[in-house]
């Protein structure tokens, strides 16, 4: 069903509307995009352009109003209810802007949550989570509670949690927005280093153009449409586009 050949995510004519009548908002207006395995794809654009809506649809958290979405070789329309929930649990990892760690669990326990959700025994899950915690450089803070960790450390725990169950798709929503520049760079470097591999696709939604150099591909959006797709070598084109878009919105 899932394969490392072909795109990890394929969107064709994806549209999303919220509300109805005069209050209706078209967040996405016919998106066609492929997300490839083995790449870190940045999704960039001004606030309100539809980035979060798009990744929510790609991750199976929202249904599109129109269009087709293929996720890891599965048509999302064929997955519904508990099947979709189980699919997410097995194949998708999430890194949230606000970390969303459980405050009463230690760092390693938080990282083990996806495995516990999948039914693994707690001791086994924590053992596996400890490997990821070590990989993100927090071995000595494994027993700390989130309140005892800095923002950057909490986000590293969140990255470990997102990877512990070996997902095929990793979705990161503004992972550095709550961090200072240095911590943000550290986190992005970590994402680049530990998440990208040939059988996994990584999507990162970000405002921060300082991390564009870490991306394999950058998709720029505005007003619910894809404006531009740039590879690593086309960074300057992208920066110019971003500047124009920002000025237009201002």
């Amino acid at each position: 069903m899932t394969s490392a050949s072909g795109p990890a995510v394929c969107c064709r004519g994806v549209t999303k509307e919220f509300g109805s009548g005069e209050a209706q908002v078209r967040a996405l207006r016919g998106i066609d995009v492929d997300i490839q395995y083995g790449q870190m794809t940045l999704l960039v654009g001004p606030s309100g352009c539809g980035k979060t809506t798009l990744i929510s649809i790609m991750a199976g958290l929202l249904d599109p109003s129109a269009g087709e979405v293929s996720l890891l070789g599965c048509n999302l329309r064929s997955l519904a209810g508990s099947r979709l929930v189980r699919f997410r649990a097995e194949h998708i990892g999430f890194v949230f802007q606000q970390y969303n760690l459980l405050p009463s669990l230690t760092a390693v326990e938080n990282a083990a949550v996806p495995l516990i959700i999948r039914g693994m025994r707690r001791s086994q899950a924590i053992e596996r989570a400890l490997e990821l915690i070590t990989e993100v450089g927090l071995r000595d803070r494994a027993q700390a509670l989130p309140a005892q960790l800095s923002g950057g450390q909490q986000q590293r725990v969140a990255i470990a949690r997102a990877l512990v169950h070996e997902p095929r798709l990793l979705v990161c929503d503004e992972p550095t927005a709550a961090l200072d520049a240095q911590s943000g760079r550290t986190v992005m470097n970590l994402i680049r280093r530990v998440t990208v591999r040939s059988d996994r696709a990584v999507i990162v939604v970000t405002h921060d153009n300082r991390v564009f150099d870490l991306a394999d591909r950058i998709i720029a959006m505005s007003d619910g449409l894809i404006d531009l797709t740039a590879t690593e070598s086309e960074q300057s084109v992208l920066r110019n586009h971003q500047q124009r878009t920002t000025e237009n919105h201002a």
Partner: protein
Amino acid sequence: MNWLAWKMLTGDRTKYLGIVFGVAFGTLLIAQQASIFVGLMRRTSSQIIDITSADIWVMDQRQRNVDDIRPMPDSRLGRVRGVTGVEWAVRLSKSMIRVRTLNGDFTQGILVGVDDASFTGAPLEMLQGHHADLRRPDGVILDFDGYRQLFPGEPVTVGRVLDMNDRRAVVVGICRVTPPFQTFPVIYTRYSQAVQFMPPQRNTLSFILARAERGQQPQKLARRISRQTGLKALTWDEFFWLNIGYYIENTGIPVNFGITVTLGFIVGGAIAGQTFYLFTLENLRQFGSLKAMGVTNFRLIGMILLQASIVGIMGYGIGLGGSALFFELMERSGQADLRGMWVPWQVAVIAAAAVGVIIVLSSLLSLRRVLVLEPAMVFR
């Protein structure tokens, strides 16, 4: 996932303890007040409870409860003895009497006159002396709490002299009885002696106690006695519940306790429910994350119900234990007001049901929020 539910619940210690407190408070009020109500109602039938040797109580047709004495002529005793199936029948008198205390004050007392020959109706638990000591001139048996009331601070011993309705009585025995509804001393003497202590009156017979012959059903015998004698004859059970029913219907006691129990339910439920709901609200992002990571609504329902059950069981245990401890302390303190009361198992079951309702209602409010939660909200 059970472990996760437990950690989420206990991680926020303030809210966790707040919910447990709410449930415990509600349980304590419900159990304690309901138990006091049951105990008080039992006390209205204390004289019935303390006489277990008789199957049937016979009394005037118009009598409504054990205190509503309608004296009968002594000849009624012969009529009851003449009914087929009656193994034996004896006299019992019950009246209020004026007793002088140690410091010269007067107080009311309950005077019970038991059968001269068999002492049927005499107290079950004797602390000092024997039933046979009632044969001594002017002999009376006094209950322990009544003794302390009449002779405060004095050592409890037989031989004390009482002034009852200006007649001399000698305490020949100390007993323990079921505390009466009105905390008056309970004084036992022979029927013939009781008649002399009472103010003069034409009829002195309060009750006839009867026992059914082996093989006779007490209920059927009671109906036969009523038919043949024209008196009211009730089994022990029937008289017990008739007495309690009278006080429930004709006093404000049930309403008063009912209000308190209801308040306990409402206040306890409000504290627990509100705190539990707040706990859910504050963890909404976490629940959203769990949904995004693949926890189904079914499992979320299980988590929340487990959390609610944990606080419910803990709060119930603490509240019920608190009630039991309260009555134990009352017993040990020697306070006659609440002595002899406990938490009946029926009250514990009712309290458990009330806690169950509180927990379910609290859970429903929280469940509704979590189930309608869109997992995509974690991206906002």
